């Protein structure tokens, strides 16, 4: 599974990265997490409100700091 956290270094974006790491561990899935800070790449995904979460190329959340449990749920979908 490939997970991307989109955001240009704002406080919420860093928190989302942390939460995502925790969620991957909790869900026990095999995933790589990358942070995308490049605005051009963020725009390519059609995201206007950061932080956003992308799982396997699909934007699953934007403009929201998800909780660990919410991310676990998204991972298991």
């Amino acid at each position, binding site marked *: 599974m490939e997970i991307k956290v989109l955001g240009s270094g704002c406080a919420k974006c860093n928190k989302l990265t942390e939460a995502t790491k925790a969620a991957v561990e909790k869900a026990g899935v095999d995933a790589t997490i990358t942070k995308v800070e490049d605005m051009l790449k963020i725009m*390519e995904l059609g995201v206007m409100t950061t932080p956003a979460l992308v799982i396997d190329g699909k934007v699953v959340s934007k403009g929201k700091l998800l909780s660990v449990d919410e991310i676990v749920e998204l991972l298991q979908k």
Partner: protein
Amino acid sequence: MNKKSIYTLLLIPVWFLIYFYLESMTNWLIYDAIGLTEGKHLSKSIWFFAFEVPKVLLLLVLIIFIVGIIRSYFSAEKTKKYLEGKSLLRGNIMAALLGVVTPFCSCSAIPLFLGFVEAGIPIGVTFSFLIAAPMVNEVAIFFLLEDKNFGWEIALIYLTSGLTIATISGYIIEKLQLQKYVADWVYKVKSSHEETEDETIKSFDERIEYAIDQVKEIVQKIWLYIVIGVGIGAGAHGFIPQDALAPFLGKDSWYGVPLAILAGVPMYSNAAAVVEIIKPLIAKGVSIGTALAFMMSVIGLSLPEAIILKKVLKWQLIAVFIGVVATGIIIVGYILNLII
């Protein structure tokens, strides 16, 4: 509806109960339980603090919750779609209005700016949105409405002047043909127009959830400012003479408005917190026009936001943006000082 939503809605009557008995509870706590003597300056200050802090926090929670529910019907994507292809002046007005209700955080200013530009929305219309979004704050409107020193007239003046500044500033920025001062790479942005799913349909549970998140987030961010603001108010209560500030920041002081705006620029705070700070100032003789100018400057003209925008705008455009908005606030401040 799920359990969480039901519990949340059940809290609303509890809220009203606490709110309406707050004064008697404070009286009991301060004069009976702690036993302070009524009528003394110090007891008055302490009473004011003990009453005002929970009152403001209660109001804040309810107002953010209601606003959160309203906001859940809007999104940056919907706003963008709505503004696409709108003519100039009409686009500016719509952008300013949508700026008030669309969920927006200044940390998202860049992607939002890029998204708008990429969708072909004129720079001036985008600016109307970016100016109105922080400056006209619905939580601040409710706070002004609730306070007897302000009332609905002031709330209305704040709303219309903020919208006017946002509309006209955006219009001027467009007319000045400043597109060349947008960083070149901005025009190269290509964005996918694929709709992400479940964006349009939201259940009522999700709206409540969203509103609760908003309450948590904003209260966490600003409760301390409110305590400090009320604390200053309580400290000034009865100690600093009425109208002490009038000679400097009253309506007849010619430099009051620009001074207030300059003082506001380096500060960056939430509108609701600023309202708490300007309340005691007004009680000490600062005129409404000057106080509102200060408030709009704090929330509408912020150095941190200008620094964020530096990534996509050249300094000339940022200077024009700040200049135009500051001029608008100055005009509004002077007009209010003249008429109130």
